[in-house]
């Protein structure tokens, strides 16, 4: 473990570098940073070779199809996001430079950054920004459609200013616009075989499933200190062992998704560093439908929640590269995370008490599959073991991974699921736990919870808002049907020559922006 970046130490590095990058991005004078951090000054040049998992031969450049790491990475090299999330998880300006909410958070004014140009030479303006948002609204298959459903009107105010009106207040609108589907398109773009973006790189070779080759544009990037590489090559390396070997043998400079089981070994290599982002990776959970017997019984749910040995799963299945979950999905890195909520621990006696009260000890059927997540079956087996001590039995049913998301999830009364991190507390809670949510995979429907979350959404007073979200987390953690037992770490591997690979509050490989943020020492 000694070579693995300890998150508590590396957060210091993040702070100052991010400060610098942030200042530069905002067009402030970077001079105050230079003398102090001369060693950290980005250098130009070189070819960045990334070995990544999270894409396939069917990847497309159309932003309404993005669903995994590689498309996010290449889209942010060719285009720009509308809003960027910084290392601490705050929304900062990107193509939209600044914004302002009117009281009630239902009407927002956005200022489009001036002087940013497409490859074609045209300046990015309000029309482009409005088109980029509208591309994911209306008749579309874009996954971002649901996120944007609260938008009722987008009105252009002048060439670099527009107004968004929402059906209800939402203080998190900038975070919603930071969704990775929302990249700055040129007004009217429908054909994505020709790319015209504001990012620093242009597409040189497009071979989805094999590699994506990107070449830097001539001249300076509009973000100072970023876009340092001459060429960026994203290699699709699906096999984890192959990816790890490619990093160790120096055939690539950075990889994502290292195997927790071998991460410690990789970190021993002197030419390689492993960067660990704690508590923001995938959330692994078993979900029970709260309107289906026997899971409609509060005590059965309590019994199951106390009867799972979370720490054992984290230690054995994830080799320690995960944190225990507390049955709700809000990330510890989120500012509305309620740290005062006690972590539920394994307590067979309490579990036995609740099962007895419910008059049921199973066997409960749990459907799992590697198609839900690779470790699902192992986790379920440990769950089965730990429940035995509480006098209950679990019947682990292994089902096919093919079609898992359409045939099992949302349909089976008790099954495995993973949830990716979402940028805001509101987004996290509304997508999964609102009565009206399409993906309410626990069928947990509580009108008082709905009211609370919708009210918190429009609350501009931060203290009040924090209190409301804290209540919401308590409700889910106590009464909800989700047993979220582990939150994975992101494990990136970097060559020691590469700089800029800090942990990020959102995604791995520095929010999939290593091509933009990194440089060679």
């Amino acid at each position, binding site marked *: 473990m000694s070579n693995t970046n300890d998150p508590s130490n590396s957060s210091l590095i993040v702070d100052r570098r991010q400060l610098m990058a942030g200042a530069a991005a905002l067009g402030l004078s970077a001079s105050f940073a230079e003398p102090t951090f001369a060693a950290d000054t980005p250098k130009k040049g070189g070819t960045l070779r990334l070995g990544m998992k999270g894409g396939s031969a*069917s990847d497309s450049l159309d932003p309404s199809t993005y669903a995994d790491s590689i498309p996010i990475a290449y889209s942010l090299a060719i285009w720009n996001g509308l809003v960027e999330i910084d290392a601490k998880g705050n929304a900062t300006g990107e193509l939209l430079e600044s914004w302002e909410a009117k009281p009630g958070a239902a009407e927002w004014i956005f200022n489009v950054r001036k002087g940013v140009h497409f490859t074609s030479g045209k300046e990015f303006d309000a029309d482009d920004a409005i088109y980029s948002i509208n591309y994911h609204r209306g008749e579309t298959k874009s996954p971002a459609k649901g996120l944007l459903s609260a938008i009722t009107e987008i009105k252009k105010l002048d060439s670099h200013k527009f107004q968004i009106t929402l059906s209800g207040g939402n203080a998190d609108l900038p975070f919603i616009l930071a969704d990775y589907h929302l990249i700055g398109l040129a007004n009217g773009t429908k054909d994505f075989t020709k790319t015209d973006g504001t990012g620093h790189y242009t597409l040189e070779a497009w071979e989805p499933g094999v590699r994506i080759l990107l070449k830097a544009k001539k001249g300076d990037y509009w973000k100072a200190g970023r876009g340092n590489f001459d060429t960026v090559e994203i290699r699709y390396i699906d096999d984890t062992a192959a990816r790890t070997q490619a990093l160790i043998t120096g055939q690539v400079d950075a990889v994502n998704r290292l195997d927790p089981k071998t991460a410690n070994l990789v970190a021993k290599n002197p030419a390689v560093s492993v960067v660990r982002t704690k508590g923001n990776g995938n959330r692994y959970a078993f979900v029970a439908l709260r309107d289906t017997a026997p899971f409609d019984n509060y005590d059965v749910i309590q019994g199951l929640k106390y009867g799972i040995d979370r720490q054992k799963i984290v230690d054995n299945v994830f080799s320690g590269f995960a944190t225990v979950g507390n049955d709700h999905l809000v990330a510890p890195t989120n500012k509305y995370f309620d740290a005062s909520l006690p972590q539920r621990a394994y307590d067979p006696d309490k579990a036995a008490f609740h099962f007895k009260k419910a008059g049921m000890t199973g066997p409960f059927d749990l459907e799992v599959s590697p198609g839900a997540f690779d470790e699902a079956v192992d986790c379920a087996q440990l769950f089965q073991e730990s429940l035995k001590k509480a006098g209950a039995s679990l019947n682990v049913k292994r089902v096919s991974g093919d079609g898992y998301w359409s045939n099992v999830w949302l349909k089976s009364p008790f099954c495995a699921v993973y949830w990716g991190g979402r940028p805001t507390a509101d987004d996290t809670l509304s997508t999964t736990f609102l009565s009206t949510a399409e993906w309410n995979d626990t069928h947990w429907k509580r009108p008082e919870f709905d009211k609370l979350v919708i009210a918190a959404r429009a609350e501009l007073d931060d203290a009040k808002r924090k209190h409301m979200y804290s209540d919401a987390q308590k409700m889910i953690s106590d009464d909800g049907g989700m047993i979220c037992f582990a939150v994975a770490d992101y494990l990136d591997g970097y060559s020691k020559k590469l700089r800029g690979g800090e942990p990020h509050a959102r995604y791995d490989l520095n929010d999939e922006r290593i091509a933009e943020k990194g440089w060679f020492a």
Partner: protein
Amino acid sequence: MLKLIATRALLGLVTMFAVSVLIFICTQILPGDVASAVLGQGATAETLAVFRKELGLDQPAYYRFFDWMFKALRGDLGISLTNQHVIIDELLPRFQNTLFLAGYAAVIAIPLSVGLGILAAIREGRPIDRISNILTLMTISVPEFFIGYLLIMVFSVQLGWFPSLSTVFPEMGFFERLYNTTLPALTLTMLVAAHMLRMTRTSVLSIMSSPYIEMAFLKGMTRSRVVAHHALPNAAAPIITVVALNLAYLVVGVVVVEAVFTYPGIGQLMVDAVAKRDVPVIQACGLVFSGVFVGLNTSADILAILVNPRLRHRR
């Protein structure tokens, strides 16, 4: 004999048609539907409906089959559902890569295993026979990914002679390609060598016990001459069949090796397509695979007829 060959060729065509029907039916009964697989966990009922209509999944199955088959006959394999690319354009370069790797492995494996097989037959029971048998049996007994990782560990991590990533790109020259794909080619060689070697050895040896071979020995010929001139021509048919079978395996059975070495072959394309329920791509890959398989086996049959002295000189 011509009639015999024509029958074989015709049978090959019939098999192809039957396979195409099977491919179509199988892709129809895959669990889950393409719309929800493509849009993933992020799909909502509304976006699903829009996408399904866009894909033409609302048409009846028999209509889609004949439409697909006639287009495929004209070389039009359709458009990928997931990224709207023309499938043939995506398939061809990958198919060429697969053929390149298969060819490379075959060039090493066939002379090696047939040669060793004949040698083993000549030297039956001698050390060369035993050693080649044991070695090839060992390599076929371990799974291919294990051989692959073993080769990577030794030749790229420890010795640094070959890259562990065998990805090839269009701009690469022939020798660079050869260099990059050496490890996967060696892995494949180890996989197919045992089968061919043992088949060659056995079929040569089984001929060796027939009366005319005994006659040749009685005439005073050396063992190697008897094997090469009298036994081998009659043993050729089963050898050709097993070589064809292994050639076909080199083309269609290399998905795991492709994954281990990150080689952009057709197998990886098909795996991706299955995961995403990209039916036209699955069908196209299936057609190509079955075409190779049926084609190679039919040519093996025809070749076996051509080289068989008894069939060549009919009474």
